[in-house]
């Protein structure tokens, strides 16, 4: 399953990763090799097989909708690359 350069660049954009030309070429080769290998799954007839998303049969694990202790703003912001008052500072979203 050979990926094209365009496909690799598209995937990189979906993943918000800036790739160098060298990385792009390397990934075209390596990802294609891995996906090629994974083609073996097509040997198997899975039409009647349900997918396993998680191995436990847990469903809808909920808790009471009551406030619990949580991090203080200072704790939550302690590792922030940029902080303004009690906010994470980010670059402009709107022009």
């Amino acid at each position, binding site marked *: 399953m050979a990926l094209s350069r365009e496909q690799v660049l598209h995937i990189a954009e979906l993943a918000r990763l*800036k790739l160098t030309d060298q990385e792009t070429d390397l990934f075209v080769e390596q990802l294609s090799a891995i996906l090629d*290998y994974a083609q073996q799954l097509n040997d198997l007839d899975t039409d009647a097989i349900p997918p396993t998303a998680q191995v436990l049969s847990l469903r809808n694990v909920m808790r009471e909708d009551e406030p619990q202790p949580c991090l203080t703003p200072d704790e939550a912001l302690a590792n922030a690359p940029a902080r303004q008052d009690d906010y994470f500072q980010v670059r402009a979203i709107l022009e």
Partner: protein
Amino acid sequence: MELYALTIHEAQDLLAAGELSSRDLTTAVLDRIDAVENRVKAYLHVDKESALADAAAADERRAAGQDQPLLGVPLAVKDVIVTRGMPTTCGSKILQGFMPPYDAMVVEKLRAAGAVILGKTNTDEFAMGSTTENSRYFTSHNPWDLSRVPGGSSGGSAAAIAADECIGALGSDTGGSIRQPAGLCGVAGLKPTYGRVSRYGLVAFASSLDQIGPICKDVTDCAILFQAVAGHDPRDATSVDMPVPDSLASLEAGVQGMRLGVPREYFVDGMQPEVEQAIRQALTVYERLGAEIVEVSMPHTDYCLSVYYLLAPAEASANLARFDGIRYGYSDADATTLWDGYRATRAEGFGAEVKRRIMLGTYALSAGYYDAYYLKAQKVRTLIKQDYDRALEQCDALITPTTPTTAFGIGEKIDNPLQMYLSDIFTLSLNLAGVCGISIPCGFADGLPIGMQVQGNAFDEATVLRVARAYERASEWHLARPAL
């Protein structure tokens, strides 16, 4: 015997009898770290002051009459598990200097139990890898041959145990990351059943596969550490609300009358002959101990690699989306727009293997490809689980090799991702099927350890530990130490 060479259970006896203080034990282990760490490079972070403070506190608690199983015992924690007050990097530059504001549940439990936390061990970046060569900081070395890999991703913890740089350790396992390094380093490593140990505070790699577990010097220690961290946690919605049986109570019960299954698909071409021999030899030991060996078939074993390398990267691509330079971690300073900031932060912060897996996972989940790759892999996962259900109907536990070869040289496989992935072919299946398993030493080839896996039913850690312990009692591999 040197204090640093003690096991948890030996240390417990001496501490309880008042013959040893945690301060002396911890000092001995810290001195050991000083003596060998520049060669082994197991730790990303050692906190001497904090460890000695933990030790002093433990001695005081003991003097006041307390005696929990881990009171005063010095332990190491893999650096994908958050520790308040100690940096947690996940082996990545994107979290360089990150100081978690909270402790993982397992760390809370260790602290409540009075354990001494020595520091954080090296890991492949975000637990993605089989050798620690993907750590952005340095590669750890196998104490049995420093030119070889210790395995991964919990290679730091396994190397630290093999080198007596801690009395016990925690690792994490998504596709073999506890068991494979335990196998390559000649120590014991248990992957509990998915849902058994809370993932609260384990930096997520693949949320349906990750589990925290012990890497220790012997099976008894694994049981002790497992009992200390297992159990329901309401903060982890995937942790099960089931009582944890006392695996220590049945540990010495032996294998008389038990049926042990050997899946024929685990003996493959390309396996190192001495590895196969060691496992066959171990099977005769089990027979001598009274077990019946039955051959079973797990026909989808060959497909585990493909399933894993579609599901795990897919889940990882979602879990690693949080690393965007906004709330924590590395943040590119030069970008002018928000989105350029994301692209550059992640490009600079992540290493090659992490990028590769994020790319693979993003592709497998993307529109037009989801059915062919991700959904298909989930369906084959069901077939793999069914293989286990059928096999474990015929026996109490499965015996298999842990890895196809002994430890290879540092640098040998790093340029060939697929070759690297093949070192996990015997361990991936357990995470996919949601069962538990342990690796224990069963021999040597040219001075390098060989590991054997005991695999068991979901939530049946007690049987897995008991079967492993029976072999350990009849052998001496776990007593060997590398010459450092």
